[in-house]
């Protein structure tokens, strides 16, 4: 695969890659011109559907199918939200795209708005991306100037305005209905579904939310065609009728204990070990990997023995992870204690839980409490069962919460316990030699200490 020529990242190394002239010189906005001239919105939806494109934001939902849920013949307005909140631990691909190729993001947005008949788009941008903010702002101004945005784009009867909405440092604002609430000026408490955003979303109007990278894929599907897109990646498993396939290019954000961390564009399906060895230059300091997070901490852990797993939408699931997630691959070397991973992960999710759903609000905090106690040398073997129970209990998959944050909190716990239980038990025995066998209620600590 090393001869693969990047498409999504083709532009980023050019000088002034964020400028309109540079983007246009490299073929930018060609897809938009062609599409506005030759295709109706329905046709665009049809093409994206046929391409098999699945969302890159984490849930891998088929993009064309999502668009087709919009009510037909709706008088409008229909809103489009670009999810650029990118806050999943270990994830930074959208950032590179927005900072170095903002016009590609905008072209994808304009095309997707055309397909969905949206007349207003909001880019929900993570606050901590100030450069992306400036680059997108400038790019939007250039687009208005050049007639790619505003009234009657390129002489067609399609009009569109794009606004940037900056977040304020909350992970939950990336959840699509939390994002919608946040744009409305409210607390980002995810909404219960149904109704789904396609029916009742932003300002109670039909709304589509898509990830930045998803939209940039749309540009190239329209530019190069469905066949090109399907020539990359992995077709659906014929034995699994529910597999929707993993077509197209994908950005992998490699970080952690590797020699060359960074964003790598490859066709979906690269093997995890190959990504680390061939592209990331191997695990640092000559060590071996103990575990790898396949797609943001929410997806859980793969063990060293699972590194052969292809990083497509089905691969991580086959080894008990939540999914490919955001393809933010984090490598943990053989010296890194799993208890620390678990503790950090739980601290993140307890801190970021929006606090609506009882099981998520209390469960994530309780798990953190227990891990704090274990790390403080007062762990018991029974704690691991309790942690497992908390992990099994929360999330939209068992149906006990409103949004997927709780699943993201659960998977690191579940996979760590399943795959690294020996290490965790060892840790408890070692750090609490006199009390690790104790049963009954653990000694209570004031909640104030925890809070």
């Amino acid at each position, binding site marked *: 695969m090393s001869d693969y020529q990047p498409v999504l990242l083709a532009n980023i190394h050019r000088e002034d890659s964020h400028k309109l002239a540079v983007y246009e010189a490299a073929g930018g906005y060609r897809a938009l011109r062609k599409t506005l001239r030759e295709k109706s919105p329905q046709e665009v939806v049809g093409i994206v559907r046929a391409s098999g494109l699945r969302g890159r934001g984490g849930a891998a939902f088929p993009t064309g199918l999502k668009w087709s849920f919009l009510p037909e013949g709706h008088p409008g307005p229909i809103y489009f939200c670009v999810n650029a909140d990118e806050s999943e631990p270990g994830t930074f691909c959208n950032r590179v795209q927005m900072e170095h190729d903002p016009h590609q993001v905008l072209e994808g947005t304009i095309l997707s708005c055309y397909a969905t008949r949206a007349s207003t788009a909001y880019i929900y941008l993570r606050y901590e991306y100030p450069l992306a903010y400036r680059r997108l702002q400038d790019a939007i101004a250039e687009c208005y100037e050049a007639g790619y945005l505003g009234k009657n784009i390129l002489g067609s009867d399609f009009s569109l305005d794009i606004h940037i909405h900056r977040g304020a440092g909350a992970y939950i604002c990336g959840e699509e209905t939390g994002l919608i609430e946040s744009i409305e000026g409210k607390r980002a408490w995810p909404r219960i579904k149904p109704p789904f955003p396609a029916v009742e979303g932003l300002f109670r109007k039909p709304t589509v939310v898509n990830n930045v990278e998803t939209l940039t894929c749309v540009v190239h599907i329209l530019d190069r065609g469905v066949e090109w897109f399907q020539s990359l990646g992995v077709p659906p498993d014929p034995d699994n009728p529910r597999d929707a396939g993993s077509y197209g290019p994908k950005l992998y954000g490699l970080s952690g204990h590797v020699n060359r961390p960074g964003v790598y564009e490859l066709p979906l399906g690269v093997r995890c070990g190959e990504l680390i060895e061939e592209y990331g230059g191997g695990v640092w300091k000559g060590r071996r990997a103990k575990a790898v997070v396949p797609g943001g901490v929410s997806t859980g852990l793969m063990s060293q023995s699972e590194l052969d797993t292809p990083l497509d939408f089905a691969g991580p699931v086959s080894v008990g992870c939540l999914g490919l997630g955001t393809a933010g691959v984090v490598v943990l070397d053989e010296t890194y204690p799993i208890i620390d991973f678990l503790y950090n992960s739980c601290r993140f999710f307890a801190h970021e839980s929006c*606090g609506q759903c009882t099981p998520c609000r209390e469960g994530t905090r309780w798990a953190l409490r227990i891990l704090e106690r274990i790390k403080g040398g007062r762990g018991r073997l029974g704690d691991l069962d309790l942690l497992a129970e908390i992990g099994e*209990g929360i999330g939209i998959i068992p149906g006990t919460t409103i949004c997927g944050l709780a699943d993201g909190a659960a998977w690191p716990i579940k996979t760590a316990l399943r795959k690294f239980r020996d290490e965790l038990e060892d840790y408890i025995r070692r750090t609490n030699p006199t009390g690790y066998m104790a049963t009954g209620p653990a000694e209570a600590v004031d*909640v104030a200490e925890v809070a």
Partner: protein
Amino acid sequence: MATIIIDGREIEVPDHERLNLIEAARRVGVEIPHYCWHPGLSVVGSCRMCLVEIGRRDPATGQVQMMPKLMPACNTPIQDGMVVVTDSPKVRRARAMVEEDLLLRHPVDCPICDKAGECRLQDYHFRYGQPERRGDVRPFSSRRQELGPRITLFVDRCILCTRCVRFTREVSGTAELMVRARGTHEQIDVVDGFPLDNKLAGNVVDLCPVGALGDKDFLYRQRVWFMRSHASVCTRCAAGCSIWVDENQDRIYRVRPRENPQVNRWWICDDGRYDYHHVHDPRRLVAPVCREGSGLVPIDWPELLGRLSDQLARARPLAAVFSPFLTVEEAYLLARYIRGLDPEALLVLGPIPREGEDERFPGGFTIAAEKCPNRRGVEKVVAHMAGEVAVFERLLSELDGGTIRGVWVSGGYRQEWIDATTAARFDGLQQLVVQDLFPSPLTERATYALPGAAAAERDGSYVNRTDQLQSVSWAVRPPSGVRPEGSLLWALLGRQRLYDARAVLREVAAEIGHFHVAAEPIPEVGVNLKVNLLARSEGPAGEAEGVRQTRPS
């Protein structure tokens, strides 16, 4: 028609009824525990106590296919062919998990909590919770924070169901309450300088499923299991909200809204909520007195009953003032009594207290400007008996003209309703009988000043401003020495045994067309007189029309 199966029991629901699974299950006697859902508020689906398993029955094969994940009953509308299971091991585990979670940081200070005994957290814990505590967190104690002049928050008892927050946004429209911070740091709060202070604020205390919100009027005054609740009607304004009067040994401690889709739905206003204090006001009249020379001296009821009618009969021409606080039955008996003594007697409607304008809230709740419960009912009775309803001014001018020699005045007003100058115009009457709650310039001038009963002490019916007639029974006994209006008039009319308001209402129904539906037993939510009248006069088409016209806003 949708057919669904809940725990093996089949239930059919007509298409126009849009029920969720909590409501549907209730129909077959299955309780689905819930915290955050309330029929009067938007659905947030966050507490997760109402999780159930759902599936579908294939109409062709009859085979049932269950969904793998649990679903919140509150956000799941019924659908034809749906199968619901509310007591599987999976559901029970989920409930136990939510209960355990909610109790992790809860102070469990039930012994000093007002809600104990009617607390959902407590009840559900016994029904669905884990037997033992596994949490290793020692919770906070009973931190308390003032939210407003009447409402206090026990911060750590809160389970963050957000019912109170949604109420202030959706029903009162005042939006004082909010959730502050995130995750387990969250707490209900107000912004400095904007306390929870609106006319519907008291409702949040009833809404709170746990003891987090306390009403300072009720706080620490009574354990709920000592009280009995009586269905009643608020008499503070013409809206006539259905209420529960909670009482122990004839002392009222609390008034709560009673659900009535025809009138107040789930709410009452604070004016009505705290109105009960007048019942135990020490200034009340509590013994009958009669004039002797320039003073008033006590008289006992038997003696009074023995001579009152004769004395009134000798003071013809008579007039009677019908207070809008009288029940329909009392107004009817008073009219019968006075007209029995003087068939030409002038029947006058008492002053109608009004304050400002109707107050409408965004959620539809309205407080009426007319501050009395039964103008409509009394007017109809008087109009029927006298052919017209004379206004109070008319009586005053007759008094000035000296054409009247005896007057019966019924009161029952909360506030001062007659000033000394007006009362002076009653001077010079041969007989002035006043039955009222409080002393007034008029009782000072009376030949007989009789203590009246407060609304919570009376049996009878009220007709609110949308023509809804509601019948209630007394909730507390009046102070000894007080003889309620109905009972007194019943005796004065020479009727035997105890006062029977229901029998009187049947008489009214038989005699006055407007009240004809009241011949049937009155449902708890009351009946609408106008709708029924239209239905009778115009047949089915009229009925539909009437429903539209008189549906409460």
